[in-house]
């Protein structure tokens, strides 16, 4: 049925027939459908072209020389000795650690599982307070020195950004609302897992903070986010730790960095129950099974199925499913009976 542009599970040939009979809503839906199909086709083509190029997962570090541009000057590539620039060397080391973690732990080869080169741009812009993934490479600012410091030196920031790349080649979660919050969540999960591995900590020693080393003493807080206590990392931190406090506003792409606090807390609680390594495996396999528009309920359904499967295969402990279920219930996410 078509009503106010809402057509549900209607095959294109029926839409076409109705459109021919003058239904403007069906015509619009048909156009939108084709537009989406075209877009998806071009994205798939790009991915297929990329897959054909098997790389060596080489690290390439570019210096933006304080310009707002990427790939300004290649300053260090795989196998080359240290340069005189501490930031360049840190970006090289941290991106290598993240790459090796995914390879050694999950047999995942670089960002795309096909050895894509890992490109990092450092010294981006002037006093630039950010780090981002752009679909192909990572870019880091030096921070303004007032509230933020160098983003490329922080292992959890580098892991977070690289994980966005990996997510792009797996679930490719859309970057708004709940799917976007899950995208952010997975980046924080691997950010915190890799940080603990890098610092050789166990979960009792870990601070579960994200971005604690990129904030200065003058910054009004201890970090950017907290997995253990969402909403407490700094004066601006509005992450909820329960669905009761879910953010439903429009800011931040409908709260992608805000509502990620809910699954982040569930991850933390799960780690307390069954440990970091088993959780890392469960979350990675879940990321492989999710899809672009997945929401929190989908996440819970898939993670429980994944955990049962991993338990059957003897890869995680028998109590894992119950632990995950309990952790998600603690943040207000329970499976809906069908």
């Amino acid at each position: 049925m078509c009503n106010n542009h809402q057509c549900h599970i209607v095959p294109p040939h029926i839409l076409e027939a109705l459109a021919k009979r003058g239904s403007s809503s069906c015509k619009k839906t048909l156009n939108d459908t084709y537009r989406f199909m075209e877009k998806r086709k071009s994205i798939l083509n790009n991915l297929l072209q990329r897959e054909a190029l098997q790389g060596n997962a080489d690290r390439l570090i570019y210096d933006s020389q304080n310009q707002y541009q990427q790939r300004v000057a290649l300053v260090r590539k795989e196998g080359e000795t240290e340069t005189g620039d501490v930031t360049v060397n840190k970006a090289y080391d941290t991106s290598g650690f993240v790459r090796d973690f995914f390879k050694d732990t999950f047999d995942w080869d670089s960002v795309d599982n096909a050895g894509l080169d890992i490109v990092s741009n450092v010294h981006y812009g002037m006093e630039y307070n950010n780090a981002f993934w752009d679909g192909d490479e990572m870019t880091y600012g030096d921070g303004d020195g007032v509230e933020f410091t160098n983003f490329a030196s922080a292992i959890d920031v580098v892991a977070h950004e690289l994980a966005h790349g990996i997510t792009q080649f797996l679930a490719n979660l859309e970057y708004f609302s709940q799917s976007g919050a899950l995208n952010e969540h997975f980046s924080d999960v691997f950010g915190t897992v890799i940080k603990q591995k890098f610092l050789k900590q166990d979960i009792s020693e870990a601070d579960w903070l994200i971005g604690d080393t990129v904030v200065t003493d003058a910054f009004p807080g201890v970090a950017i986010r907290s997995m253990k206590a969402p909403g407490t990392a700094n004066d601006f931190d509005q992450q909820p730790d329960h669905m009761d406090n879910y953010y439903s506003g429009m800011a931040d792409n409908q709260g992608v960095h805000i509502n990620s606090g809910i699954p982040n807390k569930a991850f933390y609680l799960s780690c307390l129950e069954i440990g970091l390594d088993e959780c890392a495996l469960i979350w990675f396999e879940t990321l492989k099974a999710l899809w672009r528009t997945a929401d929190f309920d989908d996440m819970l359904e898939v993670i429980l199925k994944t955990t049962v499967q991993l338990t059957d295969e003897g890869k995680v402990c028998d109590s894992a499913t119950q632990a995950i279920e309990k952790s998600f219930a603690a943040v207000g996410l329970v499976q809906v009976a069908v």
Partner: protein
Amino acid sequence: MKYKILIEGGFAAIPKRYEGEVILTSQEMDVLFTAMEAVLSAPNEALRDAFSYHIRLEHGNRIYDKRFNEPDLPNAIRNFVTQLKQGA
């Protein structure tokens, strides 16, 4: 010229707002207004943690209101925002 600027997103996701009025020469304003009229290429939907800039400039009956992603932000606008930040 009146301005309203909202910088959202980013790894830290701490929004920054700048609002006020500055005195600019007509030449300086023209540079900014021309930049605001720039035709943007298709947005990069793979951006993650990048800043987005919501810029509103107003002078008399000339009103410009536009959103830019990090890679699309025209240099003239970026320089203007940088000056505001430094003065803030």
